């Protein structure tokens, strides 16, 4: 499989300097996430190169989008966990009213990457980290897959111990049987 970095494939522009939070290496983290996420997708979808993955994504191939979302979810989760010690575990989930209807709904290419981040406590820093990573990823991914109007790639919900123990909001989903998320990273 050829190894071409995201940087070579796309001209990733800098994160908005007016943003309230910038951590030192948003763009390179996003590039790493995309490189590894796409390589994972190529392996699982049975494609011979990352370039084939990108071509399939551009053509809206549903299965490739599905693997790409999972691969990126894992890498985003890993990055968030490594950059914030407060994070305990990260989960990915499919979002719709019922799981049966999820698979009859919109094509997979039309889905955000839904993550639940379980942290010891909700902090502004973690919130800013997630937003910065989303901005950097959107810029890189939008050029790669040729969707310039893309504004979000991630839907990240942060929950704390009280949410999980009290089964409040997204914290309730961690023990849900209907829309059960899958753990993709844990400390």
């Amino acid at each position, binding site marked *: 499989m050829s190894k071409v970095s995201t940087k070579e494939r796309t001209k990733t522009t800098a994160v908005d300097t007016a943003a309230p939070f910038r951590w030192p290496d948003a763009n390179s983290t996003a590039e790493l996430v995309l490189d590894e996420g796409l390589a994972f997708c190529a*392996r*699982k*979808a*049975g494609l011979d190169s990352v370039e084939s993955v990108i071509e399939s994504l551009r053509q809206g191939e549903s*299965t490739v989008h599905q*693997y790409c979302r*999972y*691969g990126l*979810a*894992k890498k985003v989760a890993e990055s968030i966990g490594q950059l914030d010690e407060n994070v305990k*575990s990260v989960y*990915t989930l*499919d*979002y*719709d*009213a*019922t*799981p*049966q*209807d*999820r*698979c*009859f*709904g*919109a094509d997979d290419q*039309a*889905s*955000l990457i*839904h993550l639940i981040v379980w942290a010891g406590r909700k902090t502004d820093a973690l919130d800013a980290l997630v937003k910065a990573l989303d901005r950097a990823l959107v810029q890189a991914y939008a050029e790669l897959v040729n*969707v310039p*109007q*893309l*504004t*979000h*790639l991630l*839907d990240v919900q942060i929950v704390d111990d009280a949410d999980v123990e009290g*089964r*409040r*909001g*997204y914290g*309730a*989903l*961690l*023990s*849900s*049987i*209907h*829309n*059960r998320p*899958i*753990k*993709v990273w*844990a400390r």
Partner: protein
Amino acid sequence: MERQIDVRTKQVSPAFVVRDTADQDLWATVLNQLDDVAENLQLDSGIHAILRQPERELTVSVPVVMDDGHIEVFTGYRIQHSSARGPCKGGIRYHPAVNLNEVRALAALMTWKCAVVNIPYGGAKGGVQCEPGELSQDELCRMTRRFTAMIMPIIGSRRDIPAPDVNTNPQVMAWITDTVSMLERKTVIDIVTGKPIPLGGSKGRTEATGRGVAITTLELLKRQGIAPNDARVAVQGYGNVGSHAATILNGMGCQIVAVSDVTGGLYKGDGLDISGINKHVTAHPKGLLEGYGAPGVEQIDNDELLTSDVDVLIPAALEHQIRADNADDIRASMIVEGANGPTTREADSILGERGVVVVPDILANAGGVVVSYFEWVQDLQCYFWDEKEVNDNLKRIMVRSFKEVWDFSQEKDVPLRLGAYMLAVDRVANAVKSRGVFP
């Protein structure tokens, strides 16, 4: 040369042991709910005992040769809670935390769901403990085929008809169909529902649940003496269920004044332009509401949507959205549960005390299983309906089911949720009683 075999049995990670306790609680919750209903119905203790236990539980090992040549052994389940009213029906899910208690609970819930809409099915559920995202398409296909072969002794078009659930989809259903067809040496398209349309799937399935929610809402409005044109509706969740429910209700004259998705919500006091919103969502690269703007439309968040000044609130997003901490703030006088479990038990009590009418998920979002039933009927007949026929029959069943639950609840003087469960259990109990205990 002798080939070295590397066999790895998938172990449940400790992280899921905690959840297993929650699943035991869930099965206990399902049993407690049955016990409450049995008491209200003064159910015969023998029949009650029969319904407290699944009819059949099958645990299978699913060895799969992975792409790198090593063998992994997954664990799969198929549980049939009741076949008293007809063949069992229920989905198959792929998830690392699938376990017996979870599948037991879901199988029982399917029994009640099929009974409440009076379709001739019992309840079942199945699953394989795996991480589907980590499996390649080839591995997923091999795992599905082996699992199918292992549960084949108990499934069949007159025994137990699986369907998609968490992390399974029409492609997985197509693999199951093909596997059974190959092993039985004939084409067996009636073995599962939720198939792709070219393989015997039904038209109208995509919109079925949302359409069912809309039909239920219109029936509720009728009982409350409110004309659709006078009804103000808020829909939380603009996915497959919420968007279709909003579109159909809007087409029937209802004012959809608020909608929301993960990016936030939209509000317009005299009604949103749903057709314009649908065009925006279709054009949006991720199918979202964000970025939509029109004169008079305000941006709101999900909490504001839940407490907006409307007649009907349709939670069609995720579970546990209406809780003890926000139930008092809800201004809608009617709630129609499009999602599974959007109202917590505590919130349900608060809403009941306040006189808010709640149409429970077991009835409101049953449109999907009704159209799955139609798919099976069409497959058995090898005669396929056009979409109008599917929609007309769905309407007939949902209208009838709503009436039966409403009348039963009025007669027993209980809330619709309890009434729906009582009616469902009563139907299953009557079937058990009529059939008698074999031998």
